[in-house]
């Protein structure tokens, strides 16, 4: 039997689960709650309770009590979770500040799932196959990214932008997904920043932020990675580090200080926080728009539920000429996950796509013509799902990164 080192630390949360099941089934329209677990819903007929929080908590109780062991088989269940945190949002939540249902103080589901994953890794039952590849690539000195690409390839796009400096107060952390898979969005970002006359710097030796390792629970090389990244930006004089990736943002702003036990020597911002300042200071010269388009915003879990950053992206969108912001039925803390996170996209791609298709249909129901978001991982999964959808859907809506959307209005 494994030591269960990490799970034991989460006993308060596990033993505080009362088994009410609202993490699977709650519908509370008054607060915008329409079900909770994207995996459970996507599983449809095979939606056994092990696919959502209540069932998993029951399994964890049995594990902590020594009734059943960790195993590879368990890992196959456990990693079918995008760690979106929607279960925490419904768990004993009064949704009113004057009434506190106290269990909400003890249960942070994502922390529990991550503890379980760490114990599975340490017991040798994880990472799963594809996750193992990602970790290996990320730790490979010639790569340092989970895509298995050559280390230098991440910085190819910079060649087009000689104005990007090597040092500066405001430094951009590019992450892996955008530089390796969504370069056009980075070019859009540079177009916006150039128009706003903002200078940025970048390091050509940044490594993967390590998000994938943290989410999968395989953190053996994470300290070296974190220290390298922090030193790299600190030594180049960063006062503010910003990123366009919701996953990198959460990792830098929340995980790094938690793992290190101290605050970072610079501020960390998401690009929407930079953009809103530029818009509010009239630094972005939008062109006049005669035609109005309806846009809906998908809250990335790593930005919304994990970091409570809901309003800023909406403020950005609401101030773009010609855009009418409409909300999906489930938004902000109730938002339906895109299905990509927690390693689901890489290991269980069909599941991730199914969840994203549900989200796209919801966007269509909102009447929006554009579904936008501020996370390259969400964009990637939503776009992949979109490609597989019927023409009828494609005629109604497009999926566009918020950066590309702004850039198109210049």
């Amino acid at each position, binding site marked *: 039997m494994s030591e269960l080192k990490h799970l*034991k630390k989460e*006993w*308060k*949360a596990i*033993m*505080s689960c*009362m*088994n*009410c*099941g*609202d993490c*699977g*089934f*709650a*519908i*509370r*329209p*008054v*607060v915008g709650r*329409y079900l909770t677990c994207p995996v459970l819903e996507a599983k*449809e*007929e*095979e*939606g*056994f*309770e*092990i696919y959502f929080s*209540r*069932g*998993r908590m*029951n*399994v964890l*109780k*049995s594990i*902590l*009590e*020594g*009734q*059943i062991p960790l195993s590879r*088989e*368990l890992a196959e*269940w456990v990693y079918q979770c995008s760690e979106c945190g929607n279960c925490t949002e419904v768990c*004993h939540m*009064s*949704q*009113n*500040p*004057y*009434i*506190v*249902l*106290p*269990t*909400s*103080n*003890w249960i942070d589901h994502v922390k529990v799932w991550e503890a379980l994953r760490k114990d599975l890794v340490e017991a040798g039952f994880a990472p799963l196959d594809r996750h193992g590849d990602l970790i290996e690539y990320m730790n490979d000195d010639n790569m340092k990214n989970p895509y298995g690409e050559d280390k230098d390839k991440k910085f190819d796009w910079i060649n087009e932008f000689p104005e990007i400096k090597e040092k500066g107060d405001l430094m951009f952390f590019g992450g892996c997904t955008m530089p390796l898979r969504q370069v056009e969005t980075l070019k859009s970002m540079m177009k916006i920043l150039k128009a706003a006359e903002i200078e940025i710097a970048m390091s050509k030796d940044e490594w993967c932020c390590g998000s994938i390792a943290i989410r999968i629970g395989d953190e053996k090389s994470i300290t070296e990675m974190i220290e390298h990244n922090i030193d790299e930006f600190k030594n180049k004089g960063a006062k503010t580090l910003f990123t366009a990736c919701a996953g990198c943002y959460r990792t830098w702003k929340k995980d790094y200080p938690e793992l290190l036990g101290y605050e970072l020597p610079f501020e960390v911002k998401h690009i929407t926080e930079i953009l809103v300042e530029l818009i509010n200071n009239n630094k972005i010269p939008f062109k006049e728009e005669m035609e109005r388009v309806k846009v809906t915003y998908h809250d990335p879990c790593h930005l919304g539920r994990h970091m409570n950053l809901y309003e800023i992206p909406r403020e950005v969108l609401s101030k773009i000429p010609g855009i009418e912001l409409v909300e999906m039925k489930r938004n902000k803390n109730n938002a339906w996950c895109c299905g990509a996170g927690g390693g689901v996209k890489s290991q269980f791609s069909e599941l991730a796509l199914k969840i994203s298709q549900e989200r796209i249909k919801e966007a269509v129901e909102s009447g929006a013509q554009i579904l936008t978001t501020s996370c390259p991982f969400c964009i990637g999964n939503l776009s992949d799902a979109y490609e597989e959808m019927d023409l009828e859907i494609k005629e109604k809506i497009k999926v566009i990164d918020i950066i590309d959307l702004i850039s198109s209005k210049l």
Partner: protein
Amino acid sequence: MPELYQKLERIVSKNRISNDLYVRHAYSRNVTSNLQGVPDIVIRPKDTQEISEILKIANEENIAVIPRGGGDCEFGGSKPIGDTGIVLDLKSMNKVLNLDTDNLIVTIEAGISWSKLNDYLCHFGLYTGCMGPGSGLTSSVGGGLSHHSVGGGGCAKYGPCTNQLISLEVVLATGEIIETGCQANKYSKLPFNRFGNGPDLAALFCGDNGIYGVKTKVSLQVFPKPEFADYKTFLMPRNSMEISAQMMSEIRQKGIDVYDTMYFMDLIVSIGIQYGMFPMWEHLKRKRGVIFYTVEANSETELKAKVAQLDKIMLSKKAEEFGPEISDGNIAKWHYEEQGHWLIAHNLWGLVPGFDPVDAECHVPINAYPKIMKDLDQWDMEHSEDMQKILEITGMRPITGTGPIILTEGNNVELTCGFTSFPSYYNGEKHENIKEINVKLWKSLLERLVKQGAMFYMFGDILSRHMVDIQGYQKGYYELMRKIKDAIDPKHILSRGKYNFWGTKRK
């Protein structure tokens, strides 16, 4: 077992059956940490016919079957008694089949939750009246009917959810499918009436705790949601328990069709404030009990008249009205306007990590509950030694009391009483004796309430058997229950072990 599994798999397809160790443990508990039973197999049937086929095979193989709706039983009723049997997870049978808008009758699959059903109905200006149990966000309509559920809103006006039942489709343990009421007439097209075509056989399955059949299809009377409503909360004077009972009695005596009335005892208010549960009441100098009402009407005039009557009852007994907003302390507004009615029981949970309410909720007459609650104080003192043992491990002595006391139909309340404890796994270590003490105290408390004449409706694993063990039933009544069980479920397949039927059968 492999052969049985293959037979069952042929009925439901491999995606909807599992004997995986982890899946089985996922279904091994309900809303209590003190009771566990790990099934051999879990099945998610998609329709009535599949359930019928499953039960026929279970009969052939003599294996127990445990129907499970939302899984919210506080007495361990929707998990196996012992580590055995098949759990039938009915949550995927959750469709609305028909809404008869002329006759206001909805027909649904029994696995639908109260919250999903009411979300559907609200688009037509309708609701179920009684909103099911307090766990209605998740719990199923079938489960509610199996327990005469109340407490999730509206039970003062509409009574238990079984009041609204029009007809049922039930699969008997032997696999036969029957329909009740008007649907017993094979020519009846749509459900419209429960009472006729012979005895009210639907009633046999109402409150049956899953022992007589598997509910698969339900027709319920639904109601137009009144356009007007008001809700007020009051701080009680001294002796608030007795006075709250007087208030509820007076509401009934004056014939006011209040939608909900709930009383929170002094202890809940003071502890709740101490632990940060009720920021809206933190300003209170006198931390006494609180009572609230919600009332509905079809016109403003009607509403005003009802509110005036209710206010007179409250204020004449020196209760002090809170302001109209939730921030002013008006929990009734949260309860009615923000669907807090399905979360009211959650107030009692999780006061500290692992906090585990051991439940003994029951119905008693309005005028009896102050005396019963005093007796529970006495019971608490009599069990100080055991409670001290919990304190020594967890640093917190159990608290005996009641959550909201809820006015139900007639001159009754639902007493959501019990005591608090902890799970046996506490602070990183397993303390098996906590579970032993919990179960011992639990049985003692249930016995005390039974002997006070309380009427239980949710029996589950522990109470159904304990009620028999302490000879709480009238002999003739219990024998009739058993004979019916023998007649319609001769091998005691369904919910095997409840009410000790299986034990008596084997003897």
